């Protein structure tokens, strides 16, 4: 129980933990979808504190981790071009491609710049009319409205030297793919709070009903997560399978309508390959034909990229919740945050990096 003293409110945390343990009559398997939640769970040792009551399986909700290798390789190819300024969120720079990462391209003279917002990338394009500025548009539903706005504004302002390399993914199809897998063990989900701030939770209602799994929209703080777990195990014990909202402070049933509207004007649903998981039908967003001139894949010839993953890395099994990071033979030896082989070791939201940074080198249970 060493971690409990670190909580702002250890009494409430202890109370929630006790109630979870009192509620369960068997061990339930829950998945937290979001990488931010994985970080909280592992940092605070919530999974260890739960003991036999609940097993937490870590979900694929880390955009850095699931961006497919071919998109990383396309980013590397674009960033290497002398006429391109390649822009990206900071956490994509160390994601390994087939033979290097964006930092290595920058070291060789490629122009790679970190931006905080996609609108900063658009501004960079306006200030550098003699260069092509490409923005690496990755992320889940939370980030899509920002990236959609950058494309929308580029068209509105007539910026001709701006484009986006899109690798957007959406949560519900990934949950369905996991539930359809023959080796699935997940019995309930904690859905990602800020994804639902944008999207609301109506998309989850048919999933909860069809697969008979409770889905609890949950925040990112330790007490949020414990509360989300408690709501989920109550449902499981009572044989209910509904969508519940723990994160009422930020999420409404219908989400943020203006944001959803702009996303659907700029992007359309496409099939998307998920790194480590494989192709999932209609699980990604791509640029609509009306905005084709801002799609980097249409603007630049990027065909003929051949990808290779390191054979020893088991990131795919970790992302599907089949293996824990310490079950991978490369974990903590060949693969560390300083020299990552797989994407989940790169981002602080990746399960492998969280396990490494918080000293999880073996199973505690």
């Amino acid at each position, binding site marked *: 129980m060493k971690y409990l003293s670190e909580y702002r409110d250890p009494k409430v945390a202890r109370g929630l933990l006790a109630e979870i343990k009192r509620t369960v009559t068997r061990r339930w398997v829950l998945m937290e979808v979001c990488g931010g939640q994985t970080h909280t769970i592992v940092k605070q040792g919530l999974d260890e504190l739960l003991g036999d009551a609940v097993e937490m399986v870590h979900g694929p909700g*880390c955009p850095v981790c699931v961006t497919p290798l071919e998109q990383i390789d396309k980013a590397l190819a674009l960033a290497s071009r002398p006429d391109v300024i390649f822009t990206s969120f900071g956490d994509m720079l160390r994601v390994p491609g087939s033979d290097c990462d964006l930092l290595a391209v920058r070291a060789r003279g490629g122009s790679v710049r*970190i931006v905080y917002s996609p609108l900063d990338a658009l501004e960079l394009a306006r200030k550098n009319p003699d260069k092509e500025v490409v923005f690496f548009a990755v992320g889940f539903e939370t980030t899509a409205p920002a990236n959609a706005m950058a494309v929308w504004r580029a068209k509105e302002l007539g910026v001709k030297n701006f484009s986006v390399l899109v690798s957007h993914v959406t949560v519900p199809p990934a949950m369905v793919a996991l539930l359809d897998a023959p080796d699935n063990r997940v019995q309930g989900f904690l859905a990602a709070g800020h994804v639902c701030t944008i999207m609301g939770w109506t998309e989850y209602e048919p999933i909860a009903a069809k697969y008979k799994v409770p889905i609890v929209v949950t925040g990112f703080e330790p007490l949020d997560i414990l509360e989300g777990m408690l709501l989920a195990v109550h449902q499981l014990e009572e044989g209910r399978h509904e969508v519940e909202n723990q994160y009422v*402070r930020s999420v409404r049933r219908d989400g943020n309508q203006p944001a959803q509207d702009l996303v659907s004007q700029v992007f359309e649903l496409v099939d998307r390959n998920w790194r480590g998981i494989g192709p999932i039908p209609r699980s990604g967003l791509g640029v609509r034909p009306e905005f084709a001139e801002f799609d980097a894949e249409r603007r630049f010839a990027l065909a003929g990229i051949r990808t290779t993953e390191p054979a020893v890395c088991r990131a795919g099994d970790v992302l599907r919740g089949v293996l824990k990071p310490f079950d991978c033979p490369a974990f903590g030896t060949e693969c560390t945050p300083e020299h990552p082989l797989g994407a989940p070791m790169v981002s602080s939201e990746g399960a492998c990096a969280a396990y490494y940074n918080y000293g999880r080198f073996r199973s505690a249970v």
Partner: protein
Amino acid sequence: MCLGIPGRIMEVHDTQGLPMGVVDFGGVRREVCLAYVADQVRVGDYAIVHVGFAIAKVDEEEAKRTFDILREMSQLDELKWMEGLAS
């Protein structure tokens, strides 16, 4: 990456037709797009901001509490990008 950071809206303005504003995140200020919350927020309100876009309005108490917790949880990556970059 989906984490938003709460901040206080210090200024609201229009940039070539786009609702924008200046938001203060525990002393770090930067330009933020308000288009997705434009009908809900005014100067002095708090909002959750993700990659330069306000995505939801929150009350002051919630904003301050969340900011402190994110700092303790070392989940202020976005703020680090912001501080490290000229806006």
